[in-house]
């Protein structure tokens, strides 16, 4: 334990980057609405993402009502069911999780954690949010256009996505593709900011290998997003042309209702390649920030340094790189050559190695730690368990021979909800409980938080565990009504009804969380600057919530890594990153 090396003060080199002047808002509008302050932009991003996320939550209730009690709710017809599925998936993956992790947490935490006053290009950062908001509004508008939103499924596979049998063929699909293009433009503006801020605008002493893992996770995810979103951009543009101009990029020759369509010669598989070249990295764009944040939550609340920091960093980078060469494991049933299936199955299983390193390191961080079961810690623990569960079913689906029969069943739904739905949401919630005191200066209510955690955690398992069984039974996904079939046993219907009831309960438990957010803002216990006694820079700001420019007169200087918890001989059980190593003398005297 003693071999945590203290950095000598001489190791903090002189400043290389002169301070750049800050943009100062001149009016209420430029301070709170068209704000160029990363913290305000972060909150705007978070609130917008949460608002559209609530829409997706309600859509999931409607889907569950239909699945649990088919025929009871006559206002949900097959078309609407498909529309709900599409919008639920698209909103949750892109407009909620991506925007919240990168636009929300990224904007708030990166400048604070690396010791910068703001993002490097505040004006571009502001534009990023407003373009994102526009994308969300375009997406939401599809609920009100003739024909409603598209029902093509969140993967938008052609040719069905733009054929007349699919709901939302008139306006839904056009606006969906437009919204995606806008989202990518907006994200690129923000993403360039996050990457350049991490690479070029750190404070003195903050080497990359002293950065908290949160920043590493968000940084790597942003780099991946900048390289993966172009594929979705191109796919969206081309499909938009197929729909609007009658080009045939993705459309083969088709007969529809006895009529030969004008399309011909296009390749639907090309779309699948483009989509999943984006789509698979997207999974890790959501997961890597979660990995990073959960590392910090665990270390802080177990009062122990993270186990194997360097390995954690390299694992994040390795996962990020590997995730670009696994995309076709989403396409095993598309009729690809078995050799490709072999290649992509191999790369997919290789990803399990760095991922397993991370899981072991989290567990070893907990090992003999001083574990405080605070609400953020509960969510972090919930994440580890859920992620291991979802990851193990990922090993099933990564194998071609196991995947083919399980493809398009509820097993797949259970897998990806566990691994990239519930697990990252656990981290989002834990992170909100963790950083809320820094954002508002007040603690969130503990009792409501624990209630929220237990209902969400247990509920998630009651919802998604039975789905594995349904999938093995052969229950297909994206079906409005299962109908009569021999393999649909009575237990399937019973379980579906059960899942629906639990899903509604878990959904309403989120209202407790939202109430807690609002209530604590006014009535919460004042938190002080560093309620969790954490080491990272954002907790060392002179004001809480951090003021304009974050750091008062002088930027902090960093002397150590982010995980000096329970250092033997130190006065406190944590040593902030910006504390000079005067404590070295104390330790020297003690030994």
């Amino acid at each position: 334990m003693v071999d945590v090396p203290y950095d000598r003060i001489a190791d903090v080199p002189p400043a290389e980057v002169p301070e750049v002047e800050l943009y100062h808002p001149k009016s209420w509008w430029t301070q709170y609405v068209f704000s160029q302050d990363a913290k305000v932009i972060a909150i705007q991003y978070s609130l917008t993402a949460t608002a559209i996320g609530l829409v997706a939550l309600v859509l999931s209730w409607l889907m569950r009502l239909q699945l649990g009690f088919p025929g009871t709710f006559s206002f949900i017809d097959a078309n609407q069911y498909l529309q709900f599925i599409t919008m639920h998936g698209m909103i949750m993956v892109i407009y909620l999780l991506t925007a919240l992790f990168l636009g929300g947490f990224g904007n708030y935490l990166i400048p604070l954690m690396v010791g910068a006053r703001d993002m490097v290009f505040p004006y571009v950062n502001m534009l990023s949010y407003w373009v994102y908001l526009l994308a969300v509004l375009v997406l939401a508008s599809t609920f009100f256009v003739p024909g409603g939103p598209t029902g093509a499924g969140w993967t938008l596979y052609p040719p069905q996505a733009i054929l007349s049998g699919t709901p939302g063929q008139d306006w839904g699909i056009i606006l969906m593709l437009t919204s995606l293009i806008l989202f990518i433009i907006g994200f690129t503006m923000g993403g360039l900011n996050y990457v350049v801020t991490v690479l070029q605008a750190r404070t003195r002493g903050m080497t990359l290998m002293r950065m908290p893992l949160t920043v590493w996770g968000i940084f790597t995810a942003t780099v991946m997003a900048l390289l993966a979103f172009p594929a979705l951009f191109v796919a969206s543009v081309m499909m938009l042309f197929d729909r609007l101009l009658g080009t045939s990029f993705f459309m083969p020759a088709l007969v529809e209702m006895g009529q030969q369509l004008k399309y011909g010669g296009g390749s639907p598989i090309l779309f699948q390649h483009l989509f999943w070249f984006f789509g698979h990295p997207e999974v890790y764009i959501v997961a890597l920030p979660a990995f990073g944040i959960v590392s910090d939550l665990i270390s802080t609340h177990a009062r122990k340094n993270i186990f194997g920091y360097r390995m954690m960093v390299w694992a994040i980078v390795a996962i990020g790189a590997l995730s670009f060469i696994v995309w076709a494991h989403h396409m095993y049933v598309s009729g690809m050559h078995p050799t490709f299936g072999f290649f992509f199955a191999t790369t997919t299983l290789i990803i399990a190695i760095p991922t397993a390193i991370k899981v072991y390191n989290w567990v070893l961080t907990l090992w003999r730690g001083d574990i405080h079961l605070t609400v953020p810690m509960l969510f972090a623990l919930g994440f580890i368990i859920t992620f291991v569960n979802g990851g193990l079913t990922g090993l099933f689906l990564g194998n071609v021979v196991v995947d083919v029969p399980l493809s398009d069943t509820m097993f797949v739904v259970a897998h990806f909800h566990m691994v990239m739905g519930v697990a990252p949401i656990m981290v989002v919630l834990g992170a909100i409980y963790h950083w809320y005191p820094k954002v508002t200066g007040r603690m969130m209510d503990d009792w409501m938080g624990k209630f929220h955690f237990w209902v969400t955690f247990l509920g998630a398992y009651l919802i998604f565990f039975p789905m594995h069984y349904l999938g093995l039974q052969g229950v297909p996904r994206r079906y409005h009504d299962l109908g009569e079939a021999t393999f649909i046993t009575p237990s399937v219907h019973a379980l579906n009804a059960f899942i629906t009831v639990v899903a509604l309960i878990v959904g309403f438990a989120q209202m407790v969380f939202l109430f807690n957010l609002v209530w604590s803002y006014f009535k919460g216990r004042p938190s002080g600057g560093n309620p969790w006694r954490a080491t990272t820079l954002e907790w060392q700001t002179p004001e809480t919530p951090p003021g304009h420019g974050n750091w008062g007169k002088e930027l902090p200087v960093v002397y150590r890594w982010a995980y000096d918890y329970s250092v033997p001989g130190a006065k406190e059980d944590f040593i902030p990153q910006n504390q000079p190593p005067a404590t070295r003398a104390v330790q020297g005297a003690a030994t």
Partner: protein
Amino acid sequence: MAETVLTNPGKSPAQTAGWKGIAADWSSDQRAFKNVSWGKAMMWIFLLSDTFIFSCFLLSYMTARMSTTVPWPNPSEVFALTIGGHHIPLILIAIMTFVLISSSGTMAMAVNFGYRRDRVKTAVLMLVTAALGATFVGMQAFEWTKLIMEGVRPWENPWGAPQFGASFFMITGFHGTHVTFGVIFLIAIARKVWRGDFDVARRGFFTSRKGHYEIVEIMGLYWHFVDLVWVFIFAFFYLW
């Protein structure tokens, strides 16, 4: 805000060789790329992202071209012009390529004069670059018009695979949009150079930050990138 005082002018840490040295260099204090400003770093990363966009467009086009069962129109025939009684294949594209590559030359000269703080020459050379870029876009518009007159549409053309028109309009259109944006920004920055904004450190209208002559070089990075992309489009679309 004043510059941070250099309290500790220590010596730089010893360089290690090999991969460890590379990792140590990248992860060293404050910034990964030494002597690279924020703006330049951002432009490089943006161009990396944009490379992926053009790569996806070109790969999609190549997929369509290789998998089509209908014959692909012969580009040297399609893009031939009859000038003075001579039938010359690809002549317009050759001129367009020459113009765009030349504009890279004037851009490089503008960057050079920018660093010498030669206000007038920088501005003039940027405007020449913009003019060459606009000429390129103009010739592209002519080419589009000619093809549309001959019956090429995104969904069909008289000579073969319908993906020919679709890919052509999409890829050259997307590239032309890049050139057009480049021309607009060239003019805007040339105006600032001309006015002497960077000599008196005048603040930007939107960002309220002081400008530097470095923006000329950043603009140059974008412009050279757009030219480089054209070389690939030229090779893969016209010469294939």
